């Protein structure tokens, strides 16, 4: 009961943040209404970075302590991160069409984000090729550390290669109304991220228990 209340609370906060972004925050002077896409595009991107950082930390933790819980956490965070990165790319494309005139361009930020997406899809796909839990975790952990190197590249790509995507805005260059709306939505996405990772972790745990029970029966 307490868990359902918590889930409802997270979704209610998400709805509140979305309403705030759509109806309370003023539109951008130049881009108009379409700029409101920032309040979903940017939080999705930030939180995908957080998810991949969790993969990175859990992979290191697995290599140190060799506990399955770290591998479960890495797998769960990677899956949620992939969902958010996919969403970021799609929203960027929808925003790009009316502002840049194109759905896609080989801009540094877009390209590195697409690479990031495919790296983690590859990570999750490779995991499926190994059935046994321990070898799978042993092989996945170094990969989870290695592919995280692309996250700072994505973040800094707009500074390293000055292409079409704008560089990061800071609170000093934005209207306080917009900063508030962005923060609200960033936290709404963060709570959702925690909820998703937690439930994906529980799913993997249940799967492990079910597999163990099946193996016991076979024996």
């Amino acid at each position, binding site marked *: 009961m307490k868990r359902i209340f918590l889930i409802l609370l997270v979704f209610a906060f998400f709805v509140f943040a*979305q309403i705030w972004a759509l109806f309370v925050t003023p539109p951008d002077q130049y881009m108009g209404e379409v700029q409101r896409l920032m309040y979903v595009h940017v939080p*999705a991107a930030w939180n995908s970075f957080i998810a991949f950082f969790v993969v990175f930390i859990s992979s290191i933790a697995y290599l140190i302590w060799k506990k399955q819980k770290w591998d479960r956490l890495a797998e769960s965070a990677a899956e949620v991160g992939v969902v958010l990165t996919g969403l970021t790319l799609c929203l960027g494309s*929808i925003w790009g069409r009316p502002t840049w005139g194109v759905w896609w361009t080989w801009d540094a930020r877009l390209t590195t984000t697409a690479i990031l997406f495919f790296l983690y899809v590859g990570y999750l796909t490779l995991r499926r090729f190994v059935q046994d839990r321990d070898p799978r975790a042993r092989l996945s952990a170094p990969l989870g550390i290695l592919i995280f190197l692309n996250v700072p590249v994505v973040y800094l790509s707009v500074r390293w290669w000055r292409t079409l995507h704008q560089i990061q805005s800071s609170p000093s260059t934005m209207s306080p109304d917009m900063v508030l709306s962005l923060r609200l939505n960033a936290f709404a996405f963060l709570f959702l991220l925690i909820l998703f990772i937690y439930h994906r972790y529980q799913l993997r745990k249940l799967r492990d228990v079910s597999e163990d*029970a099946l193996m016991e029966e076979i024996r």
Partner: protein
Amino acid sequence: MNGIIEGAKEFLVAGYVLTWIVLLGYSFSLIFRHKKVSLRGTK
């Protein structure tokens, strides 16, 4: 620039609808997968 952006409200709607589809879709996928594993475990 404004000429391109005017009337771009449908893109805004598309973006927010897509966000909800993805997030709700993933939530339901977690629920269904959880149910599937629970059923398999009780067989």
